């Protein structure tokens, strides 16, 4: 059934008629009473609105305002954005963008609103030329580009308050920074963080990705933390791990253990020194350094793993943590048992390594014995 049948009208270019018909039909297919009927009606309504544009060209009785706007559009002075065309890598997209931009600006300029006078002194074409010129100047080399002070003009530019104008400038700066990054692929651009605060790029990453492609956006924004979305998760994860669990690979875990052992070796050395200085003479802690490492390891690691840190320093540094199967923190006994089973299994021909090769979640023998998990933070 065609969308026009659903709406009960003849195909028409007039959106007003479509909306009227939709409104009439909607009264008998209200979204909360007839969700299925509403879904069909709404889809057909949208379709009708789309199709109506096909008839638009033939229609002669176009609203007067439209004509007026078109007249205005023709008056756009040409060639005012030369700079942009030469530098941007995707000329078609940008060109489209720019005509769109000038078009809109002109449309609103003469509109009758109480504050027109207040803003009419801003010549947006001149502003565009002025601001892009300044941007190019700042972006001339890495040193000036990375100097925050050079960007302060953005804050004082009155035209940048305009939401559309700012959006276009934002895209322009983004494309220019991309160019700069291409020229100096190995150099860092800390200024991106400042610009991100101003243009909110990380907030609208998806829009940028649609424009510039995922890879390019990642190239520039990869280093910038996305704070906005993570907030929710951060303060909810006080008790249990929030979100799906990711298992670290074997090397991360090996690295964590190595870091811990190195730290403990140093610690035992200084402890022994301190004991000597204080004149504590116990033959046991005095003589055997291996024993000291063992004792420290047996007590320190479980305490840290069952603490809110959920791991010793090595694990913290490598961004992994120990949890029980429900993603909650281990209790002290479980942590002790985990540690003892670790030592036993390492002593027994490195069985931990072998068992890890046959499992698909990277859980080693001592993880299984102590019913714990090691996951990414």
């Amino acid at each position, binding site marked *: 059934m065609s969308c026009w049948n659903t709406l009960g009208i003849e195909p028409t270019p007039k959106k007003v008629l479509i*909306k*009227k018909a*939709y*409104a*009439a039909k*909607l*009264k008998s297919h*209200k*979204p*909360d009473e007839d*969700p299925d009927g509403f*879904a069909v009606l*709404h889809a057909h309504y949208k379709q009708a609105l789309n199709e109506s544009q096909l008839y638009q060209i033939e229609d002669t009785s176009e609203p007067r305002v439209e004509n007026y706007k078109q007249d205005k559009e023709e008056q756009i002075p040409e060639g005012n954005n030369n700079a942009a065309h030469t530098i941007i890598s995707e000329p078609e997209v940008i060109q489209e963008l720019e005509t769109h931009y000038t078009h809109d600006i002109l*449309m*609103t300029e003469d*509109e009758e*609103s109480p*504050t027109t006078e*207040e*803003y009419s002194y801003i010549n947006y074409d001149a502003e565009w030329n002025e601001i892009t010129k300044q941007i190019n100047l700042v972006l001339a080399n890495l040193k000036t580009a990375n100097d925050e002070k050079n960007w302060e003009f953005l*804050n004082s530019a009155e035209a940048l*308050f*305009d*939401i*559309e104008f*700012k*959006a276009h400038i934002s895209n322009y700066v983004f494309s220019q920074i991309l160019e700069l990054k291409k020229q100096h692929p190995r150099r860092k651009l800390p200024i991106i963080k400042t610009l991100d*605060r101003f*243009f*909110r790029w990380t*907030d*609208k*990453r*998806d*829009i940028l990705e649609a424009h510039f492609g*995922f890879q390019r956006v990642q190239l520039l924004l990869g280093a910038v933390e*996305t704070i*906005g*979305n993570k*907030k*929710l*998760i951060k*303060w*909810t*994860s006080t*008790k*249990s791990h*929030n*979100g*799906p669990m*990711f*298992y*670290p*690979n074997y090397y*991360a875990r090996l690295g964590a253990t190595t870091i811990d052992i190195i730290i403990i070796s140093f610690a035992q050395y200084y402890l022994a020194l301190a004991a000597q200085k204080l004149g504590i003479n116990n033959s046991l802690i005095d003589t055997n350094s291996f024993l000291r490492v063992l004792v420290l390891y047996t007590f320190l690691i479980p305490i840290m793993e069952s603490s809110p840190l959920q791991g010793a320093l090595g694990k913290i540094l490598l961004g992994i943590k120990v949890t029980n199967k429900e*993603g909650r923190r281990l209790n002290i006994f479980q942590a002790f048992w985990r540690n003892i089973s670790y030592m036993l299994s390492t002593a027994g021909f490195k069985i931990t390594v072998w068992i890890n090769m046959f499992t*698909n*979640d*990277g859980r080693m023998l001592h993880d299984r014995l102590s019913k714990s998990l090691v996951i*990414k933070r």
Partner: protein
Amino acid sequence: MRILGIDLGTTNSACAIWNNGKAELIPNRLDKLLTPSVVGIDENNEVLVGESAKHRLVSHPSLTASVFKRYMGSEYEFKLGKRKFSPVELSSLVLRSLKEDAEAYLKEEITQAVISVPAYFSDAQRKATKLAAELVGLKVERLINEPTAAAMVYGLHEKSDGAQFLILDMGGGTFDVSLVEYFSGVLEVHASSGDNFLGGEDFLSVLAQKYLSDHSINEKKLSSNERQRIFEMLNNAKHQLTYSQNVTVEKAHKQQEKPWIIDRDLFLKISQPLLYRIQTPIERTLSDAAITPSDIDEVVLVGGATRMPMIRSLVSKMFRRMPSGNIDPDLVVAMGVAIQAGLKEKQSDLDDIVLTDVCPYSLGTEILNHNDKSGKQGGLFMPIIERNSVVPTSIVKSLCTASDNQKELKVCIYQGESRLVKNNIYLGELEVEVPRGPKGKETIDVRYSYDMNGLLEIDVTVDSTGKTYHKTILNTPGTLSEKEIEASKVKLANLKFHPRENESYRVLIARAEKIYEGALGERRDNIGNILYQFDQVLESQDIRDIEKFVQKLEEHLHLIEQESVFT
């Protein structure tokens, strides 16, 4: 059966009802239309809500909680004395108070309500709101998005056919943007977006940071009394800045030696990072609706924070026109909710009004290989319901196993727009068992249904076994089990409440105590004496004496406040 419309706000709440063809706001026990969303416990273990609790924020910060709406749907707990309260329980205490006021006003029992939530509230936050109402015996007939509610009021009032409104709703804690069109009795939301962490409270905290750094005070070392006092005084200063160019803050902390002057320009400068954030949701809404600022007929400001001159001037610069807001921005949402309540009641005067809303964010699933050994699980986000789809909506997508002999499929549910799930908000997950087989052979159908309340339901069907799973979302923060809900109900039922009739005295005492905290020397003794006398008079239970004393006390407190707080 009447349905109550409730605007449960971050700083203030209000309720209204559809009556005789218009939204009627319901005054609370103090005859005010706004009830502060603050909950406290007093020395007798009695619960206080609203004005009196708000005054006690300064004098008894450890026994009072505010801004809990921000923590809805999380595991955060508020400590009031020795007791712990979840944000849901605190919200339900506010709802309880509103319910009592409405029952007293309408002289009938109320068991149904329509409650407004920020458009950008997630599934967990919406569920938490619904639960809060259920805890006090209110059945939620509908959760309505706040900007949509405001749009209803403007749509019905202006009655201009084919008008497009852009609603900018900034309350105490959240910022929402909605593009709405009104034609022939249909109110259609075209697109909606928002920021859940941008509101009046953030501007206050910026101001507080500035104050603290100017006086080199370490926030962590402040006692909660000192902290609340500073925040209270700065909050007043923030409000004052709406009407005057600069405000002088008298001694808010002992380290402050001379009056601290803040003017609009300075406030604007330090708030700049927040102002940048306003732009994103607006831009997103416009681009989603494929509309340019010039197509908008009216930019409407809603919510208390939009009173700030800097917001007004920013918006007028953004759109090159003056925003309108001729209806009280604090109350317009409550009025809109009442209209929705009237619609739900099927009131004849709203017969030809239909409202359609959208889902403001994309909802989808993670496509991953969760049995991956190396830890590189893909982590890609596949939207199932695209943002700004009209609701209710129900969409099915087919997924298949990613590795050989896979025993189970994990459907992780995310909300957001990023291509990578790690940048999106995690909502929960669902585990589905599938027969073992080569990868790609086993398929499941995942159905996401998003209803009019903004609540998400998920159904999964395994194609080969025909087994179905339904919304057993695991691991969601802040959701409670049946048992926990029962425990909460019992806990709330066991609380003692201060009698409604005496509320105005309570407020007066709390106010006097607040001034007592801030005063020194003679003045302090003076207030102490008055409070003691007031206790005596109250005990006498002689209404005439009490009334007389109350009047005297009110005048006295007013005088002191005038003198001491601001010049």
